[in-house]
């Protein structure tokens, strides 16, 4: 059938669920069981669709995956085999065994949300789809039709499973709303980019809307898609009548709209909820013989995340460079200490400063890079919607990150070396991605612009052999330091222009290398950055925290009319005042990060009057950071902690316990203290002082529970009091907690649970801990707990609020030790 795709119009079938309901399917009954229990009726429906003109009929397996389908009488395997067989039987009965009519295995969503939104892991989702796909292919399905998806991550798992487990064509369609958004927030551009990257044979939209509402979305899909587009609307928008869901669009009207959809660019059409064989018959009658708009190869370079797409086009974009240990002591330490929060903060910070894509490099000689890369990518995509750039030379790290990445990633990088291309290109082909091609090869970095352009050409040609298109390659002509290569900048600027003109590819540069070894580097960097953009640089890998770079960027956009009416420029600098001598610290980064109302209150007072204790007690975050920095010039960090920070925290803690101050205020103070600690930590690192930790504590939200805010509150406070918190996260298996407690020789574990249903798992965790690590104490907390309940499940301590857990931790971990 692959030969026919995108060359002629193909017809799918129509609805199944609504027809089964008419035949007596009860609310909540599993429709898939009818493949065995009421086989004849299923075959009859399929036959009617073939006779109505469908080229492709979908099996009745929408919910047939291990996560959704639980039935005592029939196994999943039986169901899927029977379902595919029913389609084939119907095809024979309809006299359509001519090799031009197909039986498709239908795959619907798992009904679960994937992590971090829900509790289903990517691998579990993959497994469920893989099993269904295998059974379907074994049963003789001609293709796999994945549909009604609402989440890019889930559809990625399904497509990967279908492609890895079978060799048959794979279609994928999703539900977009009238604004062209998925329920999980994704947009058309990003979704199309991801699916094409994964190599689907056709993609499109189904369910949710009627044909009329789908028209604008179809247009949008067609603007971006290079593969044939599928449209499978409902028979209008659902309406409730007498307790039943009804669809109003009649077969004739449906057929009229479908004709329009074909004229707009649909290549494979059918119906979803509420459509019947009559709709399909009218549709095939109206559309048969119509010429399709043959899909053309689109040339936009697009990367995407779960929620947005970034087009690498004429307007330059910023790739944030700061998630990278190179030359950064503090970052290296964070990696060694597994301080994921520090890395996430770097990501959030760069997003606020204006980055469009985040480079992610976690390579250090003594860490497990593939595992770390996977973890950081997962965590980052849970808190930011910026697309990520996977930056590694480790093939396993690259593959793992590309596999679990939710979207179409940027990949950093491949070079003109055969070995590099042989390693990277198969991954880009398989998972999709936009890869940076470095203009160097076995002979090193060519001296001349021509030489680099030649290597770029080699990369582009080699990529083509793998089926990777030039739009998915972004060339880096390599910034050379001008202090050692006097012609370095000139060569790069020439090469930028040449490579763009010769190959029509997009370009990328690590900008700041240019000034290595020079004083006042930002001056050189920002001018070079502007020059490079002028020569066609698409994406600068820069530090968006550098005010000079951002000035250059924003000015360039305003000057070149990429920033309409200079709106972004004005938004960033409307309040700009020339730096006076009084201004210190916090660079005006366009937007200052919101410290809530805190900064407002602080500014009312004369800065001179505030001391660190005051700012922490009042929860003034930025001021606390600044004052800690100033204090550290005259005072020892440890003394600052003991003389200012801890007393301030104690005072606030007492007021909280007395009920004169409340949780948000307690936490504002905690956040302010944290800011001060971060500053002091930097100082200590530079001077080589090691802060003695107050002992290690494991915190976890127990298995089955995903509500972790209470645990996070406790964590912030414990860390402020100098405890070394090992945060195992939420939904944590008892075994993992016990394992960690034993391995790290932990004396205190804190567990949280929100609901009675998960307290059982808390109890189980305590039981296991008692057995495997008897000297370890357990404190518990959470909405449903109280002292009585805590006693019942055998906890050592019930913390009714976060301060109580601090006191208990001090009691447990300080007793028998000399206090500092």
């Amino acid at each position: 059938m692959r030969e026919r795709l995108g060359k002629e119009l193909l017809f799918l079938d129509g609805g199944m669920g609504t027809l089964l309901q008419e035949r007596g399917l009860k609310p909540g009954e599993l429709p898939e069981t009818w493949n065995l229990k009421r086989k004849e009726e299923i075959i009859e429906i399929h036959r009617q669709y073939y006779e109505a003109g469908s080229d492709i009929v979908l099996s009745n397996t929408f919910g047939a995956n291990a996560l959704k389908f639980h039935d005592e009488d029939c196994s999943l395997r039986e169901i899927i085999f029977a379902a595919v067989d029913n389609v084939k039987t119907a095809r024979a009965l309809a006299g359509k065994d001519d090799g031009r009519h197909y039986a498709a295995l239908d795959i619907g969503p798992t009904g679960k949300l994937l992590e971090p939104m829900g509790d289903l892991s990517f691998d579990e989702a993959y497994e469920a789809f893989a099993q269904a796909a295998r059974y379907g292919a074994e049963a003789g399905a001609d293709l796999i039709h994945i549909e009604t998806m609402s989440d890019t991550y889930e559809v990625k798992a399904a497509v990967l499973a279908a492609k890895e487990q079978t060799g048959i064509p794979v279609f994928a369609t999703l539900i977009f709303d009238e604004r062209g958004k998925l329920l999980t927030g994704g947009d058309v551009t990003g979704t199309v980019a991801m699916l094409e990257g994964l190599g689907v044979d056709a993609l499109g939209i189904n369910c949710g809307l009627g044909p009329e509402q789908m028209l604008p979305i179809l247009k949008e899909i067609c603007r971006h898609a290079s593969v044939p587009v599928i449209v499978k609307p409902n028979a209008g928008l659902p309406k409730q009548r007498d307790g039943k869901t009804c669809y109003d669009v009649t077969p004739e009207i449906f057929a009229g709209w479908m004709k329009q959809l074909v004229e707009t660019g649909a290549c494979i059409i059918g119906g979803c909820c509420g459509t019947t064989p009559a709709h399909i018959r009218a549709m095939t009658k109206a559309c048969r013989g119509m010429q399709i708009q043959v899909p053309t190869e689109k040339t936009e370079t697009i990367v995407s995340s779960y929620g947005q797409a970034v087009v690498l086009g004429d307007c330059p974009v910023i790739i944030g460079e700061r998630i990278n240990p190179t030359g950064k002591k503090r970052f290296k330490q964070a990696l060694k200490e597994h301080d994921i929060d520090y890395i996430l903060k770097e990501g959030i910070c760069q997003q606020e400063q204006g980055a469009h894509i985040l480079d992610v490099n976690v390579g250090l000689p003594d860490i497990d890079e593939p595992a770390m890369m996977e973890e950081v990518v997962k965590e980052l995509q849970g808190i930011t919607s910026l697309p990520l750039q996977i930056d590694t030379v480790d093939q396993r790290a690259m593959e793992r990150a590309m596999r679990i990445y939710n979207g179409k990633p940027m990949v950093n990088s491949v070079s003109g070396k055969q070995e590099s291309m042989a390693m990277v290109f198969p991954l880009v082909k398989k998972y999709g991605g936009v890869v940076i091609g470095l203009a160097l090869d076995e002979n090193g970095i060519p001296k001349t612009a021509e030489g680099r352009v030649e290597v770029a050409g080699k990369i582009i040609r080699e990529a083509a052999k793998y089926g990777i298109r030039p739009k998915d390659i972004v060339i880096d002509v390599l910034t050379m330091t001008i202090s050692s290569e006097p012609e370095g900048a000139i060569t790069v600027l020439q090469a930028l222009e040449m490579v763009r003109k010769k190959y029509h590819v997009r370009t990328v540069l690590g900008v700041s290398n240019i000034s290595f070894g020079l004083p006042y580097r930002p001056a050189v960097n920002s001018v070079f950055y502007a020059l490079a953009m002028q020569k066609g640089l698409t994406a600068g890998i820069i530090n968006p925290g550098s005010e000079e770079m951002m000035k250059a960027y924003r000015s360039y956009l305003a000057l070149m009319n990429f920033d309409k009416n200079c709106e972004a420029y004005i938004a960033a600098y409307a309040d700009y005042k020339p730096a006076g001598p009084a201004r210190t610290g916090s660079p005006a980064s366009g937007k200052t990060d919101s410290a809530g109302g805190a900064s407002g209150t602080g500014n009312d007072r004369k800065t001179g009057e505030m001391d660190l204790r005051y700012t922490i007690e009042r929860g003034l975050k930025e001021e606390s950071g600044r004052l800690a920095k100033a204090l550290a010039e005259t005072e020892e960090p440890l003394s600052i902690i003991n003389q200012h920070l801890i007393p301030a925290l104690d005072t606030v803690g007492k007021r909280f316990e007395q009920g004169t101050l409340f949780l948000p205020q307690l936490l504002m103070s905690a956040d302010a203290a944290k800011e001060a600690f971060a500053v002091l930590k930097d100082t200590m690192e530079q001077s080589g002082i090691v802060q003695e930790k107050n002992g290690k504590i494991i915190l976890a939200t127990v298995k089955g529970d995903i509500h972790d805010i209470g645990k996070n509150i406790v964590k912030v406070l414990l860390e402020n009091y100098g405890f070394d918190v090992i945060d195992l996260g939420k939904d944590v298996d008892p075994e993992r907690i016990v394992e960690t407690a034993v391995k790290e020789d932990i004396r205190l574990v804190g567990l949280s649970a929100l609901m009675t249903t998960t307290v059982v798992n808390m109890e189980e965790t305590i039981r296991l801990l008692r057995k495997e690590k008897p000297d370890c104490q357990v404190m518990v907390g959470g909405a449903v707990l109280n002292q009585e309940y805590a006693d019942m499940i055998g906890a050592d301590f019930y913390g009714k609020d976060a301060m109580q857990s601090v006191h208990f931790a001090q009691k447990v971990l300080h007793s028998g030790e000399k206090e500092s």
Partner: protein
Amino acid sequence: MNRKIREAVRYLGYGRHAIDEQTLALVESSMEELSSGVRERFIYRIFELSQEGETLKIGDWEIKSRSLSKNMKGCRQAAVFAATLGPEADQMIRRASVTEMAKAVVLQACAAALLEEYCDSCQDRIAQEMAEEGKYLRPRFSPGYGDFDICHQEMLLKILQADKTIGLTMTKSFMLTPTKSVTALIGISMEQTPCHRQGCEVCEKTDCAYRRDSK
């Protein structure tokens, strides 16, 4: 202070204490950020309901619950209802948990308040529709209230096809994801039953610190 903000402040544990300006500013800005960042959705379907003692039946779905039966007494129909603020709210809270815990806690409270208000407005819409047929709604009753077992979450979501219609699912332990979501049954009856206590006051946990009518 509008009702939403007032409710959020209550969730933050202020009880009858006045909230300080700094926190109030944070509550207000968080509420605004949340309101503009989330995409609320709801769905409901109306089913015939039969009742036998403490057992309710909707199609194949059987629910044994004393408190729900009490709530549904005399109803021959029920609206199965679900609403969610969507995944964006969770993401905002997750993100604030990394950089600013105070804001995470405030967002959490704001989301709860926003969700309640949204559910109320949805219920008003359903009530209006029912009023046209001369029918009345009972207060909504969620799995997990009283002895209405939380396991019924599964069937409730399935009946509404909540995953594909509004993007609402549950975890293995029956917790809703996105977390800022509500599912409920709403009784529909031919008579208006007066003095159904609403919301929080109906709960049996009278010593709760967050109780609206706490002394």
